[in-house]
């Protein structure tokens, strides 16, 4: 299999108005490829593992950038860079969970150009899939990772269906924990999806990890005030401190009153194809003291239903420990 590292020659559209971008996306359909910061895209194209006729570069559309305060929360343009998300004072003030998550994405240079929309829409990192092999996710009929010799220590514990790739995003679990909503536009109008429904597992659609359809563009992420200034916990565990994708990450929000958990959101990334809400733990700790004893008593529940592959069994105690830390903190 040849290895490439130069970009293929393609057409490039650089609309400056979202309406123009939508029209081009609609016209090109599956032959157009939306690009934000391009940090996921260029790898696919240089490897010749995927292709398209034209890139639709969204980065010049100023209206898709920036953080705005709204009546009931904030709205973050999909083209806002990860660095801006990590350092924005409003996000740091009210939703530091998201700032923390954004602050540990990839490397400084990638955060400077990578966008929030791209971070939540990036494709999975399974190396067999990204090498261009004809696996289930690529439209084929086998999985190279879930085999006796397959290298699968980064892959899923839950909800695998033919494909066992895991969600690579660090900001996605934070957005699910904050009950964020994704604003999606097409030439036919606008729709809004809960973050939880934006991410799609292989049982529902094996070819795409998001609910975005041809001709649609993720334009903004809305975060309601529901969890503003809640008690937050974020942690990312990876082999390296920089660049690396999470082995497991956790984003949690707790509403605590008098030391007792009134409500919570506990979401883990990199354990299944979508961010995984640990709802059984959320339910179990409601009304309980937020302390180490409670954490110890519920940690094991977090991995109920986990099915380890040959090399990712370590993710089970890792995930339990992260849930424990989140509740103890």
């Amino acid at each position, binding site marked *: 299999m040849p290895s490439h590292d130069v970009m293929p020659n393609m057409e*490039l559209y*650089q609309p400056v108005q979202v309406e*123009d971008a939508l029209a081009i996306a609609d016209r090109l359909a599956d032959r157009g490829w939306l690009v934000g910061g391009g*940090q996921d895209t*260029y790898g696919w194209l240089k490897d010749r593992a995927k292709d398209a006729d034209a890139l639709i570069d969204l980065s010049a559309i100023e209206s898709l950038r920036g953080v705005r305060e709204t009546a009931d929360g904030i709205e973050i343009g999909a083209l806002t860079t990860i660095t801006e998300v990590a350092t924005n004072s409003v996000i740091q003030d009210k939703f530091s969970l998201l700032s923390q998550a954004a602050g540990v994405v990839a*490397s*400084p*240079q990638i955060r400077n150009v990578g966008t929030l929309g791209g971070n939540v829409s990036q494709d999975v990192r399974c190396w067999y899939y990204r090498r261009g092999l004809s696996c289930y996710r690529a439209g084929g009929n086998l999985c190279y990772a879930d085999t006796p010799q397959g290298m699968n220590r980064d892959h899923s514990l839950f909800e695998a269906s033919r494909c066992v790739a895991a969600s690579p995003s660090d900001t996605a679990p934070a957005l699910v924990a904050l009950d964020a909503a994704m604003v999606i536009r097409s030439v036919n109008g606008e729709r809004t999806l809960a973050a939880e429904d934006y991410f799609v597992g292989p049982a529902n659609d094996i070819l795409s990890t998001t609910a975005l359809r041809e001709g649609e563009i993720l334009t903004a992420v809305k975060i309601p005030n529901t969890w503003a200034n809640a008690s937050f916990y974020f942690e990312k565990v990876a082999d390296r401190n920089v*660049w690396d994708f999470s082995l497991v990450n956790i984003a949690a929000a707790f509403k605590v009153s008098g030391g007792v958990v009134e409500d919570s959101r506990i979401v883990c990334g990199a354990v299944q194809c979508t961010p995984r809400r640990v709802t059984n733990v959320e339910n179990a700790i409601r009304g309980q003291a937020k302390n180490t004893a409670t954490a110890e008593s519920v940690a094991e529940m977090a991995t109920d239903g986990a099915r380890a592959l040959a090399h990712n069994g370590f993710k089970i105690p890792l995930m339990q420990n992260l849930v424990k830390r989140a509740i103890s903190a």
Partner: protein
Amino acid sequence: MNSKLTRRRFIKGVIFSGAAATTGTGIYLAANAQSGQSTAERLITLNVNGRERRVDVLPTETLANTLRYKLNMTGTKIGCNRGECGACTVLIDGVPNYACSVLTQNIKDKEVVSIEGVKEADGTLHAVQQAFIAENAPQCGFCTPGQVMSAVALLNNNPRPTKLEAAAAMSGNLCRCGAYEHYLNGVMRASGQLA
């Protein structure tokens, strides 16, 4: 550069007035407005190290390719060519970026500073370069241009960083020789915190 800002505003102005005058789609950039459905123009002006350069750039060409093979500025190194090593780091509007993972067509109205642009006009090395020499920071030297660019960007924003801040700012640049500590000492020396 003021001329660049003006150009951007000019383009926007053309687009807004164009949008008002047309019913359909296809108003992209000023140069494309007439043809409507066309894509990026190839002959563009870049601002590199304070100089305007006219370059013929393919639609999907990366900045690292343009710098090295069109402008003959080979100081910017291509290591992995996929955003995983940092050797190609340049400053775009003062912010460190991987030149291998940015399309040249995307920086038409921005200012690029590459390693060739950090020394003074009279050839005096930048404080970061002098400090790296004093600390014997480069070993094989391949990652050094990228390390210099990240350090310059850091010190422009934060003239007296702590060592931890410096390590965080330099964390997007790999050194396969493992001379990280020497580079960090270089950054501290350049910031005047190491005699």
